[in-house]
């Protein structure tokens, strides 16, 4: 993700040097930079969402493992009491 962000920054840098004096090109470059910035924000937002989602899955896995461990411990006790 950091590499993608860097690539977008380089594209914006590439458009930072003026190419042409005509208004059409100016507007086009301005819009392109705007789009690239929007893409950068979208990527960062998606990355944050994926990280949060990954943490939730990880937490759920930990909880499930703890439940299973507790259940296993309980069954062991029951088994021992029968013996």
């Amino acid at each position, binding site marked *: 993700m950091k590499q993608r962000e860097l690539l977008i920054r*380089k594209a914006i840098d*590439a458009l930072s040097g003026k*190419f042409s004096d*005509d208004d059409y090109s100016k507007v086009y470059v301005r819009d*392109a930079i705007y*789009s690239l910035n929007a893409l950068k924000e979208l990527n960062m937002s998606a990355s944050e969402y994926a990280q949060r989602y990954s943490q939730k899955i990880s937490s759920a896995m930990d909880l499930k493992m703890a439940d299973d461990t507790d259940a296993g411990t309980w069954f062991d006790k029951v088994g021992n009491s029968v013996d």
Partner: protein
Amino acid sequence: MAPKKLVPALLTGLLGLSIAACSDPSVEKDAIPTPAPSSEPGSSNGVPQVSRPLDASSFLEDPCKLVDNQTLSAFGEFEEGEPDVDSNHAQKLIGPTCVWYGKQDVGRAVSVIIDTPHQKYAQPHLRGLAGVYASKESGSLDYLQAVEIDSHPGYPAVIAGNRKDMEEGNRCVVYVGIADDLTIKTSLDGGRDPEEACQVAQKVAAAVLDTLKQAN
């Protein structure tokens, strides 16, 4: 350059990505780094000129050769340089590039770019550093500071960008004129702060000029 030529070039470059002043040099008063302002042996409309152009054509296929590992090791531990010379965006928009990512932190990255697309597609009077000065004058860049690269006073250079990006990314881009119509950009992203980033970018620029002078 005719606008007809610029638009397809930019479109092509941007499509590749979407998958995922000519007057006063406007030296900034406040600042990111403050080395001595560039001496200007000659200037055209306020844009410093290059008296002895350097030929970078032998590095277009591997810009990573422009900076040696010993130079980079002074700024941290970096992976081997990753060249990008054949991709659509390298050919049409950004230019042949080499990036060295930090070993501990991939967000800390040194880059060198030979800005051939701007040389090819910009109007003749806007090529090279003139395009950067013109962007500052038109307001599309809000920061431009002329700097002198150590041991290379004949090659004009500027730190340019937008303050917000520089501060948010702790980054700095140095534009070095190696010919009147061609610049090489050196940068550090993910520095400790913009000041450190600019110091590193200027030292990398000095290493690039050392290499180019030896090759010319």
